């Protein structure tokens, strides 16, 4: 099966935003196929927050094949996930 890879890694200060489809999940990592057709592995931490469709979720709610946006920070040679967003989301209300 061809995985339709999508996404990019955006620099956000120290944070990178990794977007794509989940291809593998372990107890401590999520591998994402990005638009560049590269698998990017992001490591999870106890402090990593998850959000599914705008509500608080856990890593268990994430499945292989899901579209995901991970906000991660480089620590040494590893990307560590601060937040993982997945599921359909309502538009964020614009402030002011």
């Amino acid at each position, binding site marked *: 099966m061809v995985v339709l890879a999508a996404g990019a890694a955006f620099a956000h200060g120290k944070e990178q935003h990794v977007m794509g489809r989940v291809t593998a999940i372990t107890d401590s990592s999520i591998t994402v196929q990005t638009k560049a057709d590269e698998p990017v592995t992001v490591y999870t931490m106890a402090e990593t*927050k998850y959000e599914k469709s705008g*509500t*608080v979720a856990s890593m268990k709610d994430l499945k292989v094949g899901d579209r995901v*946006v991970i906000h991660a920070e480089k620590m040494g040679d590893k990307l560590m996930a601060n937040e993982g967003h*997945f599921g359909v*989301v309502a538009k964020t209300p614009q*402030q002011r």
Partner: protein
Amino acid sequence: MRKRPLLLSITAASVAVAAAFGWMTIRRGFSARDNPSAMEVYVAKTARKLSIPASERDAKNPFPPTPEVLSEARAHFADHCATCHGNDGSGKTEIGQNLYPKPPDMRQSETQNLTDGQIYYIIHNGIRLTGMPAWGGPGEDDDSWKLVLFIRHLPQMTPQEMKEMEPLNPKSAAERSEEEDEQRFLNEGKTPEMKMRMHH
């Protein structure tokens, strides 16, 4: 007559200690990445404590911690304070961690043991030589008192409350655009073009 040489010696020693402290401080550099030394923390905290008049220290909060007041203060904190202090008050934000001194984790006793009056005074008057500005007008300001209630609530914050604060955090046009790209990707699978942005 015998007291004079002693006085001169004490003065000379004091000047030497002050000069050595000044020299060491300068040699350490002025990078905001560092943390203040224990001596600097002690001197600054003591000076701050002494600077708050007793009447202000013992002032009582005129607002009760009702859900409405807390909700208003939470929104205010998200908009005005969270950039440095974080929505959870931990101070673990990009700006917060690069200030000198770093903002305290307000959930901890260092902040929670202050009186309501001391917290109000710090918000309302700011703290010189730190990143903490003075908020509100010259007179008594209600918003700062309401923020005191929210700061008291920080140790009991729920993930859902923090989630509700996120849309209220200040964001640049570039950050909003990036957020929209991400939402579009999650909702429709449309792939935004590759972009590299650095936010400083």
